[in-house]
């Protein structure tokens, strides 16, 4: 069920929050063979559900998330509940405060069921976590869930909760959303606070929602967007109405389709599904425009240099390779090879790309392409076949999403079809800074249209 569907049942009195939470906890206990959760907070969830039901009985409605079960990537600080970051380094870390967004969700009435498994330290795209178990894809457990917010996508795809929180530094919301067939939204940098979230790379980290539908993401954004003075990157730009319904038509919308970067090395079935979705946008009234993007291969290199340097600074105390997994340790070591000059040069290129994208947004409103060039790779694979080439799974998974973190634009991944092997395919839509609500409305309209066609 989606947030909207659960909310409708709650408002009609056909169920209550306690029932929803109990059912979700039962499903997790009986069906979680995917290593989804690191910590399930059943007692506090049931206690909060009782409180939400009492409020509802007293005529208090906190909004669309009132009494709705959600779950949190185990990177968000939770007061009194350990926050491992998927790492042995933080296996006993119990924060004394909640992350800003966790507070906001609670204020909105959401009930957290616990902390979700992830790629170790949120530093990777596979969620093959050597300490808390490999996350398995509910569509095919021999496949990866994607990462780093793997548990956040699996919890939705497995039907445990309708929405979760994740983080995205180089695609970590959008990749698992694509591989697991759910919606995932990376907001504009600064739109959602990073306060109380374990950092990976300060200038690239984004907090955002994943949901069964794009609408679920929008409803989550309505509660988590806003200004947090404790986060120096947090924007005071007024928060738009994320709950506004999508338009019936998309007349006047200009959709940029960059052939060179997004489609040059992509699985043919993935490319076809994405082109069909772009055709649907056109049928809804949008104008499709061929665009040439700035050199996103270079943007990706800049993102990697910045992420390497910042992540190695974040984890400067990590010096014992026996406490860090074999995928993450080399990345931390590689970051230590980045010079100050390299970092500054990448940051200058970041300014250059900012200026280039500002020009792009004068030509189009949205850029469309695949989220990932392939569907979820097999767990045992180190490399994946992309057309005629073999490509490292991590680099292939991040290739089309990583550049967006450099510039900070909002980006949505939503399901747009199914591969002949039964695995979901993700469409990525990118928009101008602080066009978050508009982008989500476009996604919702497309989602409904594709649903009507089925």
């Amino acid at each position, binding site marked *: 069920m989606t947030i909207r569907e659960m909310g409708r049942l709650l408002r009609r009195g056909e169920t209550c929050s306690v029932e929803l939470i109990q059912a979700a906890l039962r499903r997790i206990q009986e069906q979680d063979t995917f290593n989804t959760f690191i910590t399930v907070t059943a007692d506090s969830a049931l206690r909060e559900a009782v409180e939400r039901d009492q409020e509802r009985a007293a005529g208090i409605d906190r909004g669309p998330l009132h009494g709705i079960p959600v779950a949190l990537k185990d990177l968000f600080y939770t007061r009194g509940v350990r926050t491992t970051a998927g790492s042995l380094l933080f296996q006993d870390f119990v924060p004394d405060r909640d992350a800003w967004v966790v507070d906001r969700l609670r204020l909105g009435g959401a009930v957290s069921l616990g902390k979700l498994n992830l790629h170790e330290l949120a530093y990777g795209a596979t969620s093959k976590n050597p300490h808390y178990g490999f996350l398995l894809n509910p569509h095919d457990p021999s496949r990866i869930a994607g990462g780093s917010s793997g548990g956040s996508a699996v919890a939705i795809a497995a039907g445990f909760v309708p929405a979760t929180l994740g983080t995205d530094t180089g695609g970590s919301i959008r990749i698992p959303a694509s591989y697991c067939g759910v919606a995932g939204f990376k907001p504009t940098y600064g739109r959602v606070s990073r306060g109380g979230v374990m950092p990976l790379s300060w200038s690239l980290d984004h907090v955002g929602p994943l949901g069964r539908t794009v609408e679920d993401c929008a409803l989550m954004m309505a509660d988590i967007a806003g200004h947090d003075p404790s986060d120096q990157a947090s924007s005071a730009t007024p928060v738009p109405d994320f709950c506004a319904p999508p338009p019936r038509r998309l007349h006047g919308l200009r959709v940029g389709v960059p052939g060179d970067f997004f489609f040059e090395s992509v699985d043919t079935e993935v490319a076809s599904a994405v082109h069909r979705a772009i055709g649907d946008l056109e049928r809804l009234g949008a104008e499709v425009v061929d665009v040439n993007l700035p050199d996103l291969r270079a943007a990706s290199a800049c993102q990697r240099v910045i992420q390497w340097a910042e992540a190695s600074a974040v984890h400067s105390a990590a010096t014992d390779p026996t406490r860090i997994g074999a995928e993450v340790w080399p990345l931390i070591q590689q970051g230590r*090879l980045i010079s100050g000059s390299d970092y500054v*040069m990448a940051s200058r290129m970041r300014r250059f790309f900012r200026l280039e994208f500002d020009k792009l947004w004068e030509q189009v409103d949205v850029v469309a392409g695949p989220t990932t060039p392939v569907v979820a790779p097999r767990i045992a694979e180190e490399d994946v076949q992309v057309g005629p080439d073999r490509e490292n799974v991590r680099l292939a998974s991040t290739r089309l999403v990583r550049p967006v973190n450099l510039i900070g634009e909002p980006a949505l991944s939503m399901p747009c079809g199914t591969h002949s092997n039964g695995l979901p395919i993700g469409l990525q839509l990118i928009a101008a800074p602080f066009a978050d609500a508009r982008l989500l409305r476009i996604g919702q309209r497309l989602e409904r249209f594709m649903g009507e066609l089925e």
Partner: protein
Amino acid sequence: MEVCSNEWMPDPAEQRNQVMVDEVRAILYEAAQCLTPEIEPAFVYVLTPHPSADTEDLSEEK
């Protein structure tokens, strides 16, 4: 007699890391040839006024 060589042997893991970084760095510096000196790094150090900052009141205090 066994002779132990004390010749330094490179660590394959360190070599792999260096190769990986050098590949990405090469892409960065090739693209960076387009940069002109006025393009500053994207991180900007912005100060906000302290309560004791310059104000119109200063002249009245004299």
